[in-house]
């Protein structure tokens, strides 16, 4: 009798412990979301009043009432357009090579390990690479082109890994069927593998680009903290990007500039949200069309 009630008591405490911890674990899962909500409210409260058309269409200024981020917005568009132009073919090419062409050789393993390691290199190190290789050594100067090339190298590993996953998800039977009909390897890749891997590749690329926009702050190593009152008109021009402009405002002590930074953050988040929405739309649309 005594023993039985002890067991029951023991069981009760064990169950209670389990319940307490299950709530705690759920709380851990929600902490991130909670912080995100607080962050958004904080940013909106500080910046919403400053976020208007004048803010988007003006150049940076010493007077916070007149300041805007037109040059940073166009700089971002320029750099990202060139980055996408370079990084997409290179990334997809590498992924196709690794998944479809390279047999299981030493070279393949070397490249794969290397890509995994590059994905973990701190972004500021890419900034330093860009500064010494593109700006100084190749003499491109502190230009849009040097910035885009740097971001290309930085976002390549992410694009490659995403494209590899998309290519790997194409069923092997489709390839074998095509080979059995006498198609050559490139024909199989172009007509079978790439069309059905495309949604995955595009989604991965758009997400990598949106990551790159956010991490473009490391381009500070290339562009430095310039005070630009013109829009870059070509790849040779100097530039600044949204995160650098935001950093510039954050690091000033006056409250008005802090609010401008918050307004800049709102724009940056809208751009990122738009890109993520685009990624989802692309995926859904292609999925539907491939089912038809």
């Amino acid at each position, binding site marked *: 009798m005594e023993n039985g009630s002890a067991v029951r008591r023991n069981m009760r405490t064990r169950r209670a412990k389990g319940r307490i911890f299950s709530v705690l674990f759920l709380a851990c899962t929600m902490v991130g979301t909670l912080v995100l909500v607080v962050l958004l409210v904080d940013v909106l409260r500080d910046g919403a009043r400053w976020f208007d058309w004048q803010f988007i269409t003006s150049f940076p200024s010493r007077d916070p009432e007149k300041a805007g981020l037109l040059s940073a917005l166009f700089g971002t568009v320029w750099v990202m357009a060139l980055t996408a132009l370079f990084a997409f073919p290179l990334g997809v090419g590498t992924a196709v*090579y690794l998944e479809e062409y390279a047999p299981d050789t030493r070279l393949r393993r070397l490249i794969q390990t290397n890509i995994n390691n590059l994905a973990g290199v701190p972004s500021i190190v890419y900034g*330093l*690479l860009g500064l010494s290789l593109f700006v100084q050594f190749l003499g491109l100067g502190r230009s849009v082109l040097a910035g885009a090339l740097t971001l290309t190298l930085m976002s390549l590993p992410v694009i490659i890994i995403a494209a590899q996953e998309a290519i790997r998800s194409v069923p092997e039977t489709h390839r074998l069927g095509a080979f059995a009909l006498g198609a050559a390897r490139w024909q199989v890749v172009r007509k*079978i593998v790439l069309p059905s891997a495309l949604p995955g590749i595009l989604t991965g690329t758009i997400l990598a680009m949106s990551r790159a926009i956010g991490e473009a702050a490391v381009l500070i*190593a290339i562009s430095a903290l310039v005070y630009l009152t013109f829009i870059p008109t070509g790849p040779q021009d100097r530039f600044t990007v949204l995160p650098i402009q935001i950093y510039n405002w954050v690091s000033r002590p006056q409250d008005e500039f802090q609010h401008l930074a918050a307004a800049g953050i709102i724009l940056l988040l809208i751009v990122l949200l738009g890109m993520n929405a685009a990624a989802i739309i692309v995926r859904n649309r292609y999925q539907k069309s491939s089912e038809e």
Partner: protein
Amino acid sequence: MKLVGRGTRVESAPTKVAHPGPSTTAKESLTSRRRRRNRLWEVGVSRLLLICALVSIFTTLGIVIMLVWQTVGFFREVSFLEFFTGTKWTPMFEPANFGVLPLVAGTFLTAAIAILVALPIGLGAAIYLSEYAKDRVRRTLKPTLEVLAGVPTVVYGYFALTFVTPVLQEIFPNMIVFNALSAGLVMGIMIIPMVSSLSEDAMYAVPRSLRDAAYALGSTRFEVAIRVVMPAAVSGIVAACILALSRAVGETMIVAIAAGSTPRLTLNPVESIQTMTAYIVQISLGETPHGTVEYYTIFAVGLLLFFMTLVMNLIGQWFVKRYRHRY
């Protein structure tokens, strides 16, 4: 469908040519010419793709060569011993000191705070997602958690400086505006998804039979999670920690904005410090002319940072491979 069309075109082309009735040799040479062209095309494409793949190798080589090359310039002026053992980092003042230890200490102080935040929270989330959540809940909660890793770091920096620091100042009244604690805390939030998704993968991979055996012995769900699943997934969890630490060490904008720019050899989290990455940003801001010692310092610091994160990544990947092999 499309492929069949293409295939037949390749096959039927010679017969079309053959119909007007020229000699058989002409027909053969046309086919073989076409074949040769196809083969050339195939070889050309595979070469081109190989070149794409080699870009990544050249990137790594580029990083190492460029950083080493510039660092050599640095060590021409500053001794190895001073760099690695000096306890003062004042490259822009007279007398200039080039001891990197204060920067390393600042880096690891903020990274340690971040891990202290991210490890318990990330592990708790991983346990919840892998052991408690139903499949549908898991599929909605996981992407929500990943959003944290997608927020630009400059936004986190702003949040640390304008929201977290004032809150902390209520608790520690003598706290300075720029401090390691608030940067570290926010960085910890940022790396939660890294800890949770890697550990969750490892926990998810633990075979069901182990869990069932523990349940059969009368364990509660909590006991199964803590005493069976976690120990079985330990290499994955270690990997998650190391990779998250490496990410925290390399993180730039949060610490550049919120942690300050005072290189200081301290473990006091409420003081202003400077990390290696923040130093690189600080010097980069000013368009330091090529060839000066200040210009070279950022490469020496960058090279050290590169090697530190590389070693951590390699160890982390080794642990990942270990748990993948096990189950």
